Every structure is written in structure tokens, then in C-alpha cells.
């Protein structure tokens, strides 16, 4: 290669493929602006993919931060209107059990009223009639309008829509190396393709930093020292079945294991909050799983015998006011938009903090700033313009694939992932046209865009079937297909490892036999796979 640098040109470069970055991308595209979105890994690789998918009623913040609580309520109402396909409006409950502070429980309706959140008082009997899994030690309960939202679907729809509107583009595994700055203006951003090692130069007019937990690092690379974040790691566990219909919150100040959120056919129990210094290699631990499980069991005794299929962790980027060194739970959950003018840059903005529920508002404020800077006077449309439903982006919804497959009734469209009933045609549509689709698409990338590997076998079987299918289709023609399968399984194992007991143990024993003994994936590297050259050791 002579230069080895790919060059791209765009009006706005957005760094970070989470809900915020993709939200900004769609917001700007709706104003007619071309964007290029990059992520060092893939869509929702950070906190956007590592949360419980809760669409907050605001009840959780009613006591501590009524402004955030009210913001959550308003944004929740907007998303119910514009993105109904991404939302399960299941409702929620706050419950107090023996040992919790009765005073807090009594004050709760008042907090909700102040934030404008509907709050219905329930007797313990009424609460347990609605949710039979609740503890009989429950003494106070309120119904509030919580809901759940699929952050993968949101992200994929955002990108898909932006592509349609202005030919905007998403480039996965593209990490920022350095900014090219002249007279207070960023003119280009030099990036590395983390898959191939090649360089990418992106010529820009505006740059938005929406890198979530990584936004402090990105801002510093641009020479800005004004973004100061606290990293708060949260761990959740996923059950094999849906335990409650509604979101169940513990009626007490926030703590470990205080929420159970339904997610389609499963439930998610969370969450821990521990400050961490390092963003790399974030993984759930056995100790964290024990903490959420012990606390969660106080609300829902059946969790003691529940089968869990995976744990996962995300890092919340919490904004740290200059002198505040407090812990993660008392730091602000609000968001901030930095225009970086006082840092000497005219076309750089950072949006960080905030929550999944308020991502649209974050994108709107950012979009307003960037559009103004570009001299574009078109207003934000995301509060009223519904999210379209794209063909290649529907596969993250639990239960969609089986319904599709059943209706299609084509016996040649074989199911590749039996747990989640994902057919061959779903994989084909993803590798052809899903946002971020590319040649030699990895199993991990397919997993982000579908339910593949998310069921009780956690990819043990479907990874083998999907890989064979991809080889058959000619997507792979080298050992890289097996390497992709190995990387996918290694990634799944991070989440599987801390919940291995009970019924998951036969599963993992079979998996190891399959992946090592049958497929030889533990011996893929170098000479280990060529025993003849190795002698008898």
C-alpha cells in the first residue's frame, strides 16, 4: 500500500455509536445534514448496550432529583408516541418490604406529585394480586408508569433512518487517534480501523463527541480538559424467563439489586454501582452477581431458585462537578452539553451524562447547537417524527423472529438459533443491509443486530450453525470464520461465567466439549493447531 489511508468527508462527524450518538445522527439527518458516525467497536458497545432497558417514569429520581425525574417523565411520553415499536409499556411498581424505611414509603407519593408523575397507592394484597412473585413481606406498594425500551432497536432505527434521509454513514471499529486543528477549528480527524489496523482520515466541518464513558478521553485528545467524568460500573443478571409483567423497583433510596425489569421473554435484575478507574475489560463478577441476587431476593423470593443465563456490566458516565468526589449514586444523572468555546475550539461539542430515557432530548440540544453552527435553521423534528421500522433492524426484538418465521411458513428458511428461533433469512438480511453491515461480518456484529446467542444456550449451538451458514454463503473463505466464532464465544463467556451454577453447568460442560473437543477452537492459534510440527512435546 502506498498511502494506506482511506479518506472520508462529512458535514458532521459523530463519535460514539450508542443511543446518544445515533440519536444525534438522526436528529441532524432530519435537518438535512450529512453525518458520519464512528465507533471504536460497534453499535451499543458501551452503556447503551449494558443497561436494563428501562424507560424511566422518573419515580426513581423523584426523591433526590425532581428535575431529572420530570425530564424522564416528559421524554418517556414523547418516545411512547414516536417509537412505539421499541417500547413495552408494561407499567411499574415501587414496593417496600420488611426492613425498609416506612417513612420513605410514606413520603414517596409526595415526591412523585412534585415531579408530575402518576402514582397509585396499592394495598399489599392488590400488589401481590398484580404480581404474584412479590414477597409476602411487602408492606407498601405504588404503581407508576415505568416502561421498557429496546436500546438496540432504537440505535439501529436511528442509524437506518439517518442513512435513508441523507446517506449518512456508520463505520464500526473506527477509533479516534488524533484531531487535526487549525486556528481553533477541527478540520480532520485521524482514526484507526481497529479490525484491520489501517488508518482513516475524516474531513469534517463539525465534530460531536458522544462517546459515553469514553467522552472524557475523546475530549482530551482534542485538547479539552473541561469534561470530567466518574465511571460507575453496574452489573445486571438476566433470567431465563420473564418473572414479572411490570418493572419492580425497591421503595428505598437507590442501592444494589433494587430493580427487576422485564425484557421481552426474560427479566433483568440489577444493579450494582461501583466506581472504576479503567474502562477496558469491564466484566461482571461472581461477587457482584451475589450482591444483586441477595438484595433482589428480598423483593422476589423466587429469584433464589431462578435460572439465570447471563450477567453483563455497563459503565455509567456520570458528570463530576469540579469539587465533587462523591460516590456514583449521588452524582448527577442529568446531562451536559459542552460547546468547548472556552477551550478554544469552535466546531467541537461533547454531550455526556444523562440516561437512556433522555437520549432524544440530549440529541435535540446537541443538534440545535451543531445546526446553528452550520448555519442550518431547520428545527428539531425528533419529538414528533415517528421512527420508521426498517427491514434489517427488526431482529433485536424478542419474539419477532419466531412470529416472522411462522408467518412466512417457508420450510427452507431454517432456524439457525433455536433458543430465539432466528431463521437463516434474518441472518441474510442483516449481513446484506443492517446498519454497519460489511464483508466478513463477525458473529459478534450479527449478535448486536439480532437475538442470536441471547437464549438459554448463549450461542453454544447457534454459533456453529451460523458460522457454517456464513461459510456456505461465501462470507468467509479462510480460518477467520472460526476465529470470529471463537471471539464471539469468548465474549459471551464474560457474561456467562459469573452465573454458572445449577442448570447452566450441564450447558457449559456441553459447550466446552463442543467448542474445544469437537471444533478445536481452543487450539486455533499458530503451531498449536499443527501438532505434526510440534512433536510429542
Amino acid at each position, binding site marked *: 500500500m502506498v498511502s494506506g489511508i482511506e479518506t472520508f468527508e462529512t458535514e458532521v462527524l459523530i463519535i460514539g455509536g450508542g443511543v446518544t450518538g445515533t440519536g444525534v445522527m438522526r436528529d441532524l439527518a432530519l435537518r438535512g445534514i450529512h453525518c458520519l458516525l464512528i465507533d471504536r467497536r460497534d453499535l451499543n458497545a458501551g452503556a447503551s448496550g449494558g443497561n436494563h432497558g428501562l424507560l424511566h417514569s422518573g419515580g426513581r429520581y423523584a426523591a433526590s432529583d425532581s428535575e431529572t425525574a420530570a425530564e424522564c417523565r416528559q421524554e418517556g411520553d414523547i418516545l411512547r408516541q414516536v417509537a412505539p415499536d421499541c417500547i413495552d409499556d408494561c407499567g411499574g411498581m415501587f414496593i417496600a418490604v420488611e426492613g425498609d424505611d416506612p417513612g420513605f414509603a410514606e413520603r414517596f407519593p409526595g415526591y412523585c406529585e412534585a415531579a408530575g408523575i402518576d402514582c397509585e397507592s396499592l394495598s399489599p394484597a392488590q400488589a401481590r394480586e398484580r404480581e404474584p412473585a412479590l414477597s409476602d413481606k411487602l408492606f407498601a406498594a405504588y404503581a407508576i408508569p415505568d416502561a421498557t425500551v429496546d436500546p438496540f432497536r432504537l440505535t439501529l432505527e436511528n442509524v437506518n433512518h439517518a442513512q435513508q434521509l441523507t446517506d449518512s454513514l456508520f463505520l464500526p471499529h473506527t477509533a479516534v487517534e488524533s484531531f487535526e486543528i487549525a486556528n481553533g477549528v477541527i478540520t480532520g480527524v485521524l482514526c484507526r480501523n481497529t479490525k484491520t489496523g489501517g488508518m482513516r482520515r475524516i474531513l469534517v466541518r463539525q465534530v460531536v463527541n458522544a462517546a459515553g464513558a469514553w467522552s472524557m478521553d475523546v475530549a482530551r485528545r482534542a485538547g479539552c480538559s473541561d469534561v470530567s467524568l466518574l465511571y460507575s460500573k453496574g452489573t445486571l443478571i438476566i433470567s431465563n424467563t420473564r418473572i414479572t409483567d411490570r418493572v419492580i423497583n425497591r421503595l428505598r433510596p437507590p442501592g444494589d439489586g433494587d430493580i427487576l425489569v422485564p425484557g421481552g421473554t426474560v427479566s433483568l435484575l440489577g444493579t450494582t454501582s461501583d466506581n472504576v478507574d479503567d474502562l477496558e475489560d469491564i*466484566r461482571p*463478577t*461472581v*461477587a457482584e452477581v*451475589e450482591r444483586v441476587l441477595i438484595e433482589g431476593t428480598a423483593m422476589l423470593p423466587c429469584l433464589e431458585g431462578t435460572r439465570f443465563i447471563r450477567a453483563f456490566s455497563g459503565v455509567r458516565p456520570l458528570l463530576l462537578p469540579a469539587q465533587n468526589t462523591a460516590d456514583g449514586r449521588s452524582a448527577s444523572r442529568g446531562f451536559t452539553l459542552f460547546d468547548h468555546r472556552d477551550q478554544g475550539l469552535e466546531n467541537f461539542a461533547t454531550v455526556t451524562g444523562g440516561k437512556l430515557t433522555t437520549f432524544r432530548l440530549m440529541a435535540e440540544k446537541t443538534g440545535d447547537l451543531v445546526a446553528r453552527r452550520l448555519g442550518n435553521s431547520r428545527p428539531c423534528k425528533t419529538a414528533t417524527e415517528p421512527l420508521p421500522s426498517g427491514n434489517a433492524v427488526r431482529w433485536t426484538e424478542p419474539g419477532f423472529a419466531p412470529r416472522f418465521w411462522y408467518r412466512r411458513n417457508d*420450510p*427452507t428458511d*431454517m*432456524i*439457525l438459533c433455536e433458543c430465539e428461533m432466528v431463521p437463516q433469512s434474518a441472518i441474510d438480511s442483516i449481513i446484506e443491509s443492517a446498519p454497519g453491515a460489511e464483508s466478513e461480518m463477525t458473529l459478534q456484529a450479527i449478535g448486536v443486530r439480532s437475538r442470536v446467542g441471547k437464549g438459554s444456550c448463549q450461542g453454544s*449451538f447457534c454459533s*456453529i*450453525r451460523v*458460522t*457454517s*451458514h456464513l*461459510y*456456505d454463503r461465501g462470507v*468467509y*473463505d*479462510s*480460518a477467520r*470464520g*472460526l476465529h470470529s466464532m*471463537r471471539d464471539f*464465544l*469468548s465474549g459471551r*463467556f*464474560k457474561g456467562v*461465567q459469573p452465573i*454458572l*451454577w*445449577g442448570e447452566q*453447568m*450441564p450447558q*457449559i*460442560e*456441553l459447550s*466446552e*466439549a*463442543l*467448542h*474445544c*473437543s*469437537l*471444533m*478445536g*477452537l*481452543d*487450539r*486455533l492459534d499458530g503451531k*498449536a*493447531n*499443527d*501438532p*505434526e510440527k*510440534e*512433536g*510429542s*512435546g
Partner: protein
Amino acid sequence: MGQGERYYRTELAIIGSGLAGFAASVFALARGIASAQVGNTGAVAYTTGYLDLLGSCRGLWLDDPWQGLELLRESEPRHPLSRIGRTAIQAAFDQFSGALTEMGVGYTAPAERNHLALTPAGTVKPTLSVPQTMLPGIEARKAGVRTLIIDILGLQGFSAKEFVANIRSSWPQLSTAKLSFPDMESGGQVFPEVMARALEVSSHRERFAERIKAALGDARLVGMPAIMGIHHPDRVHAELQRLVGVPLFEIPTMPPAVPGIRLREMFEQGFPAKGLTLVPQQKVKRLVLEAGRATLYLQDSFGEVMIESKAAILASGRFLSGGLTAERGGVREALLDIPVTQPESRADWYRQDYFDPLGHPVNRSGVEVDSSFRPLGPDGEPVNHRLFAAGILLAHHDWVRQRCGAGVAIASAHKAVEAVADMLKEQ
């Protein structure tokens, strides 16, 4: 004997219908010990069909497993294979592979060196004894013979292109073809077991052979997924080869796969004819050890079954077969709560990297045994002088990473049956 209740009296009760249980039955039958075998089939249906003795030691592939056993004895003296002499291991393998051949599924006799056996992913693994239907492929790779690899329309998890893409560097002369199986041409999913049963019928063999011939090109050999019959694979193999006119071989597939089903059905049909009492697919609910006898209680669809014996071999496997259970607080032996050697806490069960070449500590958990392979109780003494243990339930091995599952099963079953014979003689 009450209503609907069956009662058997025998010399030896074998608990478990995996490889270790079947091997124990083979060895007990050979010694003329009256035996009953019970318990879930467990993981047999998941085997590749290869009988590994020891494929890896200290992280290195082994060409010579016997030399590997010496290395293992030095580095892992508590490994079950380190506690059994080479002569006994060799005798056990010879006897077991011979019994399989005699009962209808031909296996190669164990040799001095490991074979490099083929996997569906196009990788290779060292193993000691292989089904005769798979041998030609192993030899063809060594010789670099021009070979056609076929896969079958609708068969999931097996792609000839995948096999070739991964094995090409050591076996360049390969071509691929996708064939449809006779009467299963719709493009819908097809299953290895169904095709294997179909190939036992001559008309299906003939039609399938025609399709293979049409795709042959200049290939001198043909490899295909393991579907060459359930009950008489060697006969189906020979017939197909005659029809196609070139040597053929099988490659294992993902489970549930034909090589394991063959073994299970062969044992289930062959053992009763040899005088073994077989109560397969049922889990033993209780084992009572008393002076003079060991009594097993189990339930099948016809009611309760009681088996009274003079000795029992526990070959109930690990988690997949239900021999071990894992609770949040620790690993337990399922039937008698025999102490299980295991890591300090659940946080230590697994390493961070799934594919860590060292394997995971929990895989080395298991039951401790004395020199006669009697499981040890909390006091370090045998639980009972009538109770023996065999197979991967034993502690201090990692059968997956070390490629020694069949080795541990066969050698420890041999050892346990020998100890049972000694005990019965003493009485």
C-alpha cells in the same frame, strides 16, 4: 415382590450409561461377573466417536500418548490416568475397542501413535482409536490425496466449504459439493440420524451413491458427514464405496450425532443378549449400602425397580449426566453426597478466558478414590468397601482440554472392575 415392582439380584451394579458405564459392563462381562447397568445415557450421544486416550499434556498436542502418560505421571500424579499402569490402560483400550468391533461398530486397534482425526470445522485432533468409517480421511490428509468433501442440503452445522477453508493449509487438494439427500430434497432441515437410518436401505444407498459419483470430478476419495448407517456402519460404508467406486470416509458432525447414537444403540441391543441386565435411560433415585449388599432403587415407566448387588460402580458422569450438581455454594455428588474436591469458592471455578489453555479449575473437581478406585468419604476412608467409582466423575483431570475423556472412562472402568473382581473373589 410387590405389584408392578421388579427386583434383580446381581453381583455388580453399574450406575451410569456413558462411556465409563458401558466400558465397565464390557469388562465385567468378559470376567464373567453377573452385572446390571442402569442410569441415564448422558453424554454418549454427544461424542464424536473418537476414543481419545490423551491428546494434550502441558498444553502441547501429543503425537505419542504413551509417552504423554509418562509426562502426565510426573506433572499430574493425581490424574486418574497417572494412577493406572500403562499395561492396564493398553489392555483396557484393546479390550474395549475390540468389543466395539465385535459388537458391530468397527474401531481401529490402539497403536503407538495418536491419529490426527478430522473435525467438522476442518481442524484436527489427536486421538487413539477411531471408527473404521473415519480412518480413510485421516490417512488421506497425511498423504495429501485429492479428495471431494460433500455436505448435504438442509444439514445444519456442517459446511464442506468451512471444512476446506480451515484444513486447506495442510491438505490443499480438496474440492467441495453440496448434495441433496434422496427423498429429502425440499431444502428444509435434514437430520444425520434420519439419513443414517435411510442409508441402511439399499435403494437409498444406490440413489445417494449416484449423486456422489456425479459430483466426483477428479477426486480419488470422498469425505462426508457421519451418516453411514446406525447399526451396521461398516457394511453401509463398504456398500457405498463399492457403488461409488472410490474410498469414502466420515467426518463427525455436531450433536446429536450418529457416532454416539451408534454406540448407544449397539450397547442397548447387544448387552442383554450377552446376559447383562440393562435398565437404561432411568436415573437411580437411591443407593443404599448395607452390610453384605448394595441396593439401587429406580423408577421406570413400568414402576419401581430394585437391584441388589454385592458391589456397585458409580460411573454417573459430571454435570451433563447428573453425576455432579453445582449449587451457588459448591459442587456436590448427586447420589450419595460423596465429598467433592473443588476450588475454594464459586469465584474460583472458572478462569476469565473461556479458551484459556489451562482449562477451568471446576473441571478438575470430582470424587477422590483410593488405590482400588473406591470413592473416599469425609474422613478420607472409602465410603464403603462395596462402592467403586469410574469415569469423568473422578477428580484431577480436565477431559475436554486434555482430550482424555475416553481414556479416563475406559481405564478407570477397567481398574474398578478389576477391584470389584478382587473383592468378589475374597468373599
